């Protein structure tokens, strides 16, 4: 369980780094006056460092520093300061991550929240669309897997279920199969 979460986190981070770098390199408004060569050398390296260590706020820090600082040296100073901020916060984040014991799986929660837009908050439907409320994790997992394989027919669920891995389906089923036991 812990390993799955760590891997998911690393994957997310990798994707985010590349996304951030592409965004910053493409958005010329932020880098006007600077050569792309320079961008790809020192600065991009620093961006990588920053993005690698922080998922949020650092692209923002970086954008501001580029907009506001017209001297390379100054900019590098700021980047170093930013890197310090970032590494400290990641340390703190890492500890919190380790401390996160049982409880609700955060990824499962985010995955499951999507379903509520048609099936109601916590899976409690107020319309003809089926409710998850009171259903077991096993029941929900089987239903979703059957929609995914096409074994069970549905107008729209067959299209949705194909968007999730078996592990994600398990997390969603776990969430709705237990949330009604904890929330009134």
């Amino acid at each position: 369980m812990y390993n799955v979460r760590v891997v998911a986190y690393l994957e997310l981070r990798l994707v985010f780094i590349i996304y951030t770098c592409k965004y910053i390199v493409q958005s010329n408004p932020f880098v006007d006056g600077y050569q792309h060569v320079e961008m790809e050398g020192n600065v991009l390296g620093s961006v990588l460092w920053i993005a690698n260590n922080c998922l949020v706020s650092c692209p923002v820090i970086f954008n501001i520093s580029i907009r506001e600082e017209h001297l390379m040296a100054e900019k590098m100073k700021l980047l170093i300061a930013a890197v310090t901020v970032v590494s400290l916060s990641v340390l703190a984040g890492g500890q919190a991550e380790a401390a996160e014991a049982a409880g609700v799986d955060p990824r499962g929660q985010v995955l499951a929240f999507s379903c509520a837009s048609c099936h109601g908050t916590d899976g409690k439907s107020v319309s003809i669309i089926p409710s998850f409320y009171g259903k077991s994790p096993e029941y929900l997992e089987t239903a979703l897997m059957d929609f995914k394989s096409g074994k069970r027919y549905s107008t729209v669920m067959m299209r949705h279920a194909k968007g999730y891995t078996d592990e994600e389906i398990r997390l969603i089923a776990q969430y709705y199969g237990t949330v009604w036991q904890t929330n009134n």
Partner: protein
Amino acid sequence: MNQKISRRDFSKLLFAGAAGSALGLSALPGMGRAADRKRVVVVGGGFGGATAAKYLKKLDSSISVTLIEPKAVFYTCPFSNWVLGGLKTMEDIAQRYAVLKNRYKIDVVADTVVSIDALKSVVKLKSGKVFGYDRLIVSPGIDFSFEAINGYSRKAAEAQMPHAYEAGPQTVLLQKQLHAMKDGGKVIICPPDNPFRCPPGPYERASLIAHYLKEKKPKSKILILDAKDKFSKQGIFTKGWEKLYPGMIEWRGASTGGRVLKVDPAAMTVTTEFGDEKGDVVNVIPPQKAGKLAFDAGLVNSSGWCPVNPVSFESLIHPGVHVIGDACMAGAMPKSGFAASSQGKVTAAAIVRLFNGEVPAAPSLVNTCYSLIGPGYGVSVAAVYKLTAEGIVSIKGAGGLTPMDADDDQLSQEATFARGWYNNIAQDIWG
């Protein structure tokens, strides 16, 4: 208000962050009040904002959440076409804030945000009130580029040629005009080019106006003058029109005489490259951009929409400000109420994790848009999204359209599920 940040301010910002991190808190912004309740201000009580506010409280009731929305009653655009078709009333699409206020203990403030100071982390309201925040969520919806269409204006929309692309008085005006029209009249609908709010919206509208006309004024016609050469769910819409309203709806793409060059509201004419068309009812849907506040607060880039970090929807321009819904640039996601709500949930979850010094979970985003072609004839488009190096993309092999060869049973089930969807999403957001 375009934020200008001096070097000194910037260093302050950084060091405030460093101090906070050393104490084991998350990075920027709103540092240094560890013991206090965290405060989130949400601007806009529509699909994105109201969802984010509710889910923040659901995830952590100790967070103080303020929702700022000037309207006491929010009329949803979803199902406003059903009102035009005579299948729903305005009251059916009215949403209110009592449950968010009373049950979820959200501080709902009936006011308009006039400015955002992202460095000081405060918003200013029209009334002069000021609210500080640790994180700000902005979901202001869209604004219209009236000037993009020669002869069109906000005044023309309010008097002769409604856009009805914000539900409320505009929907009522368009409905009144349809009711006043003679049998044998002509309704002209002018949809904009991409990107715009609810890509299938204008075509569902044409369908449901056709339903109304078929019942009440069967000699009437609908002409769609489109700024595009193809449109959302085109195949299934066209098929539905042929089946339910044969000969009633004519669609012209941009390069076959659909492109609108100018309009004359007094004469009720629309000029295209192929000549003038006169309508009895003219529904002009102008090109769109992020809501005005996003411009005033400097949250937009040159595209007129707001770039965001796809993990937490935090602005790539102003730290601590998250932009969701139609106003943000969310990769492959369309500008829909479903998408806005999905983004609201991801953002709420990310913010709670950040407050606790944790890395947000990888986002999971979904969209399903139902369109009604006739009362028992529904179709849908669905997608599941993931974050990749290209940003938010839809997962291949999942989602997609109602099949072209769907039988009557499936189409009627989809119409039933469309009604179910509305009730459940309204409950999930405002109930």
